[in-house]
């Protein structure tokens, strides 16, 4: 039997890294894929925030003289049919995608949390009514419901955020409701009731924090869905209107006509969308592995 090198084994298990930066460095090393996802996501966020600095040209500036230029030294990713720099449009498009993604996930999440908490905690007819509403909202695919809502409300940035947020509500509400139903029976809730704590306070101070873990995991998955749905809506021409640069609309403008002559119009916006969703999915998966290992997939 070889002697066991206790120090090395302890170090490998992370005994030295319980606090501060060491803790996060250790967790990052253990979840390499999630770290990559986090890096990608942070890169997109930074690109969105500092878009004006990173982009070399104005994304809206039309320059017909240089239309459909291939990628080169001046236009890093080429130009589109109107002479707009593709690279600048992609960087600014990150702003739009992130705004819509985060906005709709946050909005849908908030509404879903409220409905789920009310449904789970109050039960009775409140629960029945909300359950039916959730069933109805879930009976349509995400894209179909979002499509109909943008058609109904009209194409604008705010309306797209609302249109994508509403279909996200049922999943959140279901998860929160299930957790609330379980948490409601626990002794500490009974104790809080016994000392006369108001219902609202119990719900927000005791129940909500304990439902956060699955909620965060769900939110990261929904962020990816939201970005994809926004891209699909813009691709169909029913999403973000001109002049905002949207990755999805960049693809629709280039669709069939330029497939042969200007492939860079098709490749780069698609890579941007895929990378953004990929990053959030990777990060979300790693979060789920850390916070709720039972859901491993």
């Amino acid at each position, binding site marked *: 039997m070889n002697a066991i090198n206790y120090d090395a084994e302890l170090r490998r298990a992370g005994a030295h890294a319980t606090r501060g930066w060491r803790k996060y460095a250790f967790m990052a090393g253990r979840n390499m894929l999630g770290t990559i996802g986090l890096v990608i996501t942070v890169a997109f966020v930074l690109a969105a925030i500092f878009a004006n600095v990173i982009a070399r040209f104005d994304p809206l500036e039309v320059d017909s003289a240089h239309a459909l230029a291939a990628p080169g030294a001046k236009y890093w990713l080429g130009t589109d049919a109107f002479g707009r720099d593709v690279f600048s449009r992609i960087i600014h498009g990150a702003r739009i995608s992130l705004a819509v993604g985060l906005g709709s996930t946050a909005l849908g999440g908030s509404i879903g949390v409220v409905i789920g908490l009310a449904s789970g905690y109050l039960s009775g007819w409140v629960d029945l009514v909300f359950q039916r509403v959730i*069933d*109805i909202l879930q009976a349509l695919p995400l894209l179909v419901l979002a*499509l109909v809502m943008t058609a109904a409300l009209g194409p604008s940035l705010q309306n797209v955020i609302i249109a994508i947020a509403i279909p996200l509500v049922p999943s959140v509400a279901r998860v929160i409701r299930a957790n609330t139903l379980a948490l409601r029976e626990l002794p500490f809730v009974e104790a809080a009731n016994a000392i006369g704590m108001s219902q609202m306070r119990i719900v927000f101070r005791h129940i909500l924090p304990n439902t956060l873990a699955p909620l965060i995991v769900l939110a990261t998955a929904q962020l990816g869905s939201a970005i994809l749905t926004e891209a*699909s809506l813009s691709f169909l021409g029913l999403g973000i209107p001109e002049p905002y640069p949207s990755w999805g609309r960049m693809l629709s403008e280039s669709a069939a006509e330029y497939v042969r002559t200007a492939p860079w119009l*098709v490749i780069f916006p698609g890579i941007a969308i895929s990378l953004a969703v990929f990053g959030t999915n990777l990060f979300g998966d790693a979060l789920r592995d850390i916070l709720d290992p039972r859901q491993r997939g």
Partner: protein
Amino acid sequence: MLGYIVRRLALMLITLFGISVIIFVLLRIVPGNIVDILFDAAGFVDPADKANLERELGLDTSIVVQYLHWIGGLLHGDLGYSYVSEKPALDEILPRIPITARLAGLALLFSTVIGVPLGVLSALKQGSRMDYVLRAISLSGLSLPPFWLGLLILMASVSLFGTMPIYTPNPQSFGQAVAIYCVPALAVGFRSAALVMRITRSSMLEVLRQDYIRTARAKGAPEATVNFRHALKNGMLPIITVIGIEAAFLFGGLIVTETVFNIPGIARFLVEAIRWRDYPIVQNLVMFCALIVVLANFTVDMLYAVFDPRIRYND
């Protein structure tokens, strides 16, 4: 069991009713109707003509009466008339359904045939390089926008074969038929395949942890029997759930795929109808979509009882 089925059907009807109300109201939130749009372009508006048209289209009655009109018609098989083509909506919708049905069926087939075996493989070889590669592929399948995948496939076929698979209602050869249906089905089925792969993998891993698997191995059962007859069969429930859900949600992916490949199915028709503000068509298509989803969920629940003898919907 019968009581459960009856209650489920009643719930389904309530859900469909709720959707019909929501879609009807949603489409009429924005002030101004089709008559305004039609007359806007004409310039001089004669109020009498406008009122006439409104009465003809049934738009002068209250919203509740209009809704009842539509629902009443639905129950008779009369879906109303398209604003754009003025033909009965049923005539517009019905011929397009088989095309989309073929695509959806093929996509579902691909996703099951590709997703389940690869998921099993990934689970059996957990932690190996192949597992990581397969997981990366499945994650990318979830991240790729389906319309971008379609565009890439078009680009590839143009550079490889010089042509794109263009849809025709009467394919000349079997090869052509395969091309025009299988290629879009692959584009839209890739995402479903990725999901099925992930769920199969996690479900298999869950089952392989069980004690009875260890018992089966201990008593000397061959590995194939253990993996398939014991593990996979018992892990089927979540997989069927996902396949059932995907069958319904395929409609969303088909919307963009049919647009990219220019296929005249009902998914693309929905987008066109929305663009042209052809409300009767939009309403009916959305109801159709909801019907499919609700039926798919019901079928999945019934399949639960078939696959897992412990589940009996009695009270």
